[in-house]
């Protein structure tokens, strides 16, 4: 497998950044990482994951769609779409990598979201295998192997070297474009590292989390479960879980009067919000119970029902660490789980 030694990683970054925009996770504060546009000398974060997920690159929090200009009594509609340039996202974890296939199912199925598609086409995802999972990790529950992430290129670290494995055509092209900086390497130590990680995964507190009680066919029993009331009781109705979630994909379309015209934009929405899907007649989900239930039913029932059983969660654990009142999908799953 092709590799680069750890001390030359930044050379590689410089090279990539000289050709296209490169984003890498960087520590803002200890253990608080965020993706930043790479600049010379930036240090790759050692944190397990970023606070915000990598979905932002393809499905940004806000995005302009069109502009209407009113001149006198005439309205002119302007397309203000911005074509994405080529970019690389480095260091995506296996969980986030899986989230793209979930988002693709939403945005790339008919009718195709051309804004999303445009960015997907221009973006190369370089994932990185996990070596030090956290207690909040439960990606394995959704069949994700953190030691073998998806993406266009998967990168594995053994402490001294970074190994590169192409997983798609795009990935292949990418490796070719930087092949002159890479060399063949011995992967024996890497296998040790992977094995060690898999062992740790088995020992994680959430390792036993099962999905058998969930899926598209469990609609009625789960929807009508009396446990939602207790589960949702302390939910604040904020959007933290939604906004840090790599798979939440709901958005709202709004108009903003700029003074020069009306700008139509979309922005993330959260099913936890009281005005979510508010329509002319009012709001279909009036209580926090209904809104809370919606989020988890979507991930655990509705999404798999429409997507060949694939769950709308990747087990990244962000909601576990960020929810102001420590409510999360694991607690929901454990509470609703039908125990044999």
């Amino acid at each position: 497998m092709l590799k680069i030694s750890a001390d030359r990683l930044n050379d590689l970054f410089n090279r990539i950044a000289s050709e296209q925009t490169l984003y890498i996770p960087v520590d803002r504060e200890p253990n608080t990482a965020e993706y930043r546009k790479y600049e010379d000398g930036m240090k790759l974060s050692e944190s397990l994951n970023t606070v915000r997920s990598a979905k932002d690159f393809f499905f940004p929090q806000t995005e302009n769609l069109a502009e209407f200009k009113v001149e006198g009594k005439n309205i002119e509609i302007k397309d203000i779409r911005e074509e994405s340039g080529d970019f690389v996202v480095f260091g995506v974890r296996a969980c986030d990598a899986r989230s793209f296939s979930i988002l693709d199912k939403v945005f790339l199925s008919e009718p195709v979201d051309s804004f999303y598609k445009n960015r997907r086409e221009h973006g190369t995802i370089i994932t990185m295998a996990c070596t030090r999972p956290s207690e909040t990790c439960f990606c394995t529950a959704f069949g994700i192997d953190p030691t073998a992430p998806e993406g266009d290129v998967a990168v594995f670290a053994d402490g001294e070297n970074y190994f590169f494995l192409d997983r798609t055509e795009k990935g292949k092209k990418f490796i070719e474009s930087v092949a002159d900086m890479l060399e063949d390497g011995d992967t024996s130590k890497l296998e040790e590292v992977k094995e060690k990680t898999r062992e740790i995964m088995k020992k994680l507190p959430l390792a036993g989390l099962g999905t058998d009680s969930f899926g598209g066919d469990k609609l009625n029993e789960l929807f009508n479960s009396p446990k939602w009331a207790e589960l949702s009781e302390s939910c604040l109705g904020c959007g933290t879980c939604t906004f840090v979630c790599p798979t939440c994909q709901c958005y709202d379309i709004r108009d903003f009067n700029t003074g020069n015209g009306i700008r139509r934009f979309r922005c993330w929405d959260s099913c936890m919000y009281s005005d979510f899907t508010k329509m002319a007649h009012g709001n279909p989900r009036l209580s926090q119970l209904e809104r809370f239930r919606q989020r988890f039913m979507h991930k655990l029932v509705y999404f798999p029902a429409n997507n060949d059983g694939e769950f709308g969660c990747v087990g990244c654990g962000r909601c576990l660490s960020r929810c102001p009142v420590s409510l999360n999908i694991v607690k929901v799953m454990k509470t609703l789980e039908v125990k044999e």
Partner: protein
Amino acid sequence: MQRIGVFVCHCGTNIAATVDVKAVAEALGHEAGVVISQDYQYMCSESGQNLVKNAIKEHKLTGVVVCSCSPRMHENTFRKAAASAGLNPYLVEIANIREQCSWIHKDIASATEKAIILGRAAIAKVHLNTPLTSMESPVVKRALVIGGGIAGIQTALDIAEAGFEVDIVEKEPTIGGKMAQIDKTFPTLDCAACILTPKMVEASQNEKITIHSFSEVSDVKGFVGNFTVTIKKKARYVDETKCTGCGLCTEKCPMKKVPNEFNMGLDNRRAVYIPFAQAVPKVATIDPNYCMMLKNGKCGVCSKVCSAGAIDYKQTDRFVEQKYGAIVVATGFNPIKLDKYDEFAYSYCPDVVTSLELERLMNAAGPNGGTLLRPSDKTHPHTIVFVQCVGSRCDDGKGKQYCSKICCMYTAKHAMLIREKYPDTEVYVFYIDVRTPGKNFDEFYRRAVEQYNVHYIKGMVGKVSPKADGKIDVQASDLLAGEQLHINADMVVLAAAIEPDKTARPLATMLTTQMDTNDFFTEAHPKLRPVESATAGIFLSGACQGPKDIPETVAQASAAAAKAIGLLCKNSITCNPCVAHSDELMCNGCSACEKVCPYGAITYQDKEFRMPNRTTAVRRVASVNPAVCQGCGACTVACPSGAMDLNGFSNSQIMAEVDAICK
């Protein structure tokens, strides 16, 4: 869909000279929702108003924007016009392109651009205007007159004459005010007391009039038609109901050395006193600053001599609360203090006096029984110098910038009276200008010069220096002759500027009326509404509004009375519908609005609301009493949820204006 009409006024050339009105009408015609945009020479004229009315009918307008003068001027005019054409009057907005545009800008391009922006803001606002309906509020049929001088007395008599109850609040022990201190009046030279005192008696005897003497207004609440006023009746230590005004106590009181303010401190009175013989009410008052009984509990003579048993050393201030429909302010004036005018030696030379002191010196009831004598040695003065404009028309910051208006005439009166009574006395008057507009005024002044040979000298007095021989050296310049003069005078009389009474400023605060920088009350309009304040239900009488002589004062007093009577005649008045209202669905019931409401217009109630999934919940919500709310909007900002909004000035309307201006 809105159908808005825009009407751009030329105001003759007032607007059209600096604003391209055609361009404004053209530009605003392109705004969304505008269906007609016209310009016209005088929009406020009958034909201008007809233009608006016809357009409302013809184009079925849902809103009207008039680009014209200040809304303070003609907003009502156009609202009435709209109403008569069937459009709710509150669907009219004014863009102020005269006072706030054409009159302040010289450049046509920028003034026109600004006028268009102001028009757009008004259009943006009118888009969000809602029809408003006025509520009715009852009128309390009683008036309060604050101040018992000639202005207050005249106003009270006129209101009482119309059949309404009137209360006069006078801070001194007697009504009468400044006129009571004056000896003779110009230009007729009739005796002030002879014409004033019958009015005072009339006021005291009129059963519709209640006089609160030695009293002050301490609190005012409420609004037009329904004021609640607290009157502080200061302790006079004499029971008004028992005192017969016999005056025995004032003769027996052993404390004789109290400066007599009625005689401008030129002689003394007792600690218990009646200011003057014709005082109304004729009731004694004990001065606690001098009364030995009140100060250290030793004396009690007055109590012993009073056969009516009216003396009450234990009396305290009392507070009376009363409701009124209208309030007339008649707080009058005072001569300014001359402590800043040391060049005239006023503070240390007793023979330098003010004009009002001269009035007392010449008055038969004055300290010298009407004989003009020098205060210092009680000798007859042979040369008297009058100095005009002491503190009036001053730019140096020591005095007042305005003309005190009455000094020229009263000085001519004084000069004439002195020359008449003491022909051996030489009288000099130093003046900047002699201002004598008024019926028979200039004739009066010319008589002083021509018939009585008063020496009028245009020029300023530079220095007044008392000399060792008791004479006074007056150093002055004669501007016409271009020479310096020294006059060896016996007396100098200073025409001190007049200023509003000191009680006016705190009173204005209580009444929420405006004052100018000199503390004169500001009238609602200097020409069209001269006796009304901008605060509804508060009227202005006499010198509190500006310097005035007696005829003018009385005329304005009657005018103010007429306005007050007009109000009191109504059973109810239309309230301003631009009041706050609370959206119950958004109200948190937190009481923030209630805390900032100056009128107590907000109350709370527990109300049942439909909640999700067929449940109900009881919540505490605010409601505004529209008859009490005056529409300041303090509550709208105190409310964090935005439940509280203001009709006519809603959040969305103001933000629409902001947006239009910043566009």
